[in-house]
């Protein structure tokens, strides 16, 4: 498993605490790149103004740091494009009752 896959696997341990679904299955992770030993993650939130945003972003950072090392993971939050429920995995859609 390469570092990118390992980071994604660790990010599956980070759940949206309100929805109870991990942020990878929710389709919140847009990009994971490794450059010069440092990880850059671009992600979004299901709702702008989510009160849990820093807990989730911090959690994503720590999950990535477990692979690349402390201080070497950088998470950028974006709403462009805004979160699209179609990006959810079938498992997530099932859990939320979307399908």
């Amino acid at each position, binding site marked *: 498993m390469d570092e990118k896959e390992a980071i994604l696997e660790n990010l599956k341990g980070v759940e949206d605490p309100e929805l109870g679904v991990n942020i990878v299955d929710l389709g919140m992770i847009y990009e994971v790149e490794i450059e010069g030993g440092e990880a850059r993650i671009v992600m979004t939130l299901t709702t702008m103004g989510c009160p849990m945003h820093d807990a989730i972003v911090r959690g994503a950072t*720590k999950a990535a740091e477990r692979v690349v090392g402390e201080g070497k993971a950088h998470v950028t939050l974006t709403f462009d494009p805004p979160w699209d429920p179609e990006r959810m995995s079938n498992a997530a859609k099932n859990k*939320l009752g979307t399908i």
Partner: protein
Amino acid sequence: MTAPNMQPSSATAPAIGLPLKYFLTGAFFYLFANFLVLIEADLLAQALFPALQVKALTHSLTLGFITMLIMGASYQLVPVILETKIWSERLGNIQYYIFTIGVVALICGFYFGLPAELAASTLFLCTAVAIFVTNILMTAKKAGTSNLTARYLKTGLFYLVTAVTLGTILAINIFTGYDISDTQRLLKAHVITAMLGFILMTLIGVSLKLIPMFALSHVKIGRTAEITYYLLNGAVVVLFFGLLMSIPVLVALGGATAFAALFTYFYQMYLSHAKRKRRNMDIGIRHSVSGVIHLIIGMVLGAGILFGWAAKPAHYTAFAYFSLFGFVAIFIVGQMHKIVPFLVWFAKYADKVGLEPVPNMVEMVDKRLGEISFWLLNAGTLLTGIGILIGNVELIRMSAALLLIGSVAFGANMLMIVRR
């Protein structure tokens, strides 16, 4: 578009103890209010809503539970909505003690017929409300931003001050024995300002933000919500003057405007509901949705009162009961199933995300206790309301017992969440 400069919510959130003390005390008063429904069933069956014991019961709910919860939730949610810290957490803590003393004194003053205690309680309540309003307005001023939700909340505060002022005048009137020519008019104006102006305005404002967020429904709070805001304000003002000055045509107009406000609100909620991505409703949302059903029953009774085909004291009492115990209380109980786990999760688990498995907020709520409170509170409320309508004291006693058990289940659930 990178995210706008979002303040970490941990930087703006108050210490958990501040909102939590309001929530737990409010839950106790909810249980106590339901206990009073049980022991004063005969007064309710006779629709003796002017009775002091019924006033004690009403204020246990409206001040002890509803207002206490709104205050606690404001201290938690206003920083989220406005992305700034509360102006003074210390004052918020001091306010809690003053408010609680005031509520207890008021309930005792009504229940045991103690005019001096009643008058003294208003001093505590007015002080507490003044602190609360100042704290929230100074927080809003610090934030410098305003949105529709903030406008709803600030307007609700204005009506809270008005309602408390009228209540104080009425309480002092009881104490002094001064015969204001028609206290009934003041009382009606007090009730309308409190119920529609403060409670409904605040609940609508908060629900327009929270319900779509919980349901993953990205319907914008737009024009319909603004229309609701102006209609509700219009209703309160017109009803206030209509009731205060006894002008029936104004009362009719105000009532019709209130209905229009509620219909536009229902429409906005319907849009949110129709476009929600999260189909499964957790126990908190189920409680809140069931509260709306009681509101509809209340609205039918309200229409009857407005158009004259429901003019008996039992109709008025049932209308107030379904509106307050049915809609407002159960709606708030539902939201507490979301807010209390949020508070506790934030304090205990937020820093552990990504490092170890942490429970999600739904897992923190005991499902069995949630189901018990859902079914018993709803059945108990419905049957108590029917008992009031038909004047059947045994039905009221039986259903109030269900309510009491339901509220114990709810209280126990909240305590278990806090003690995790």
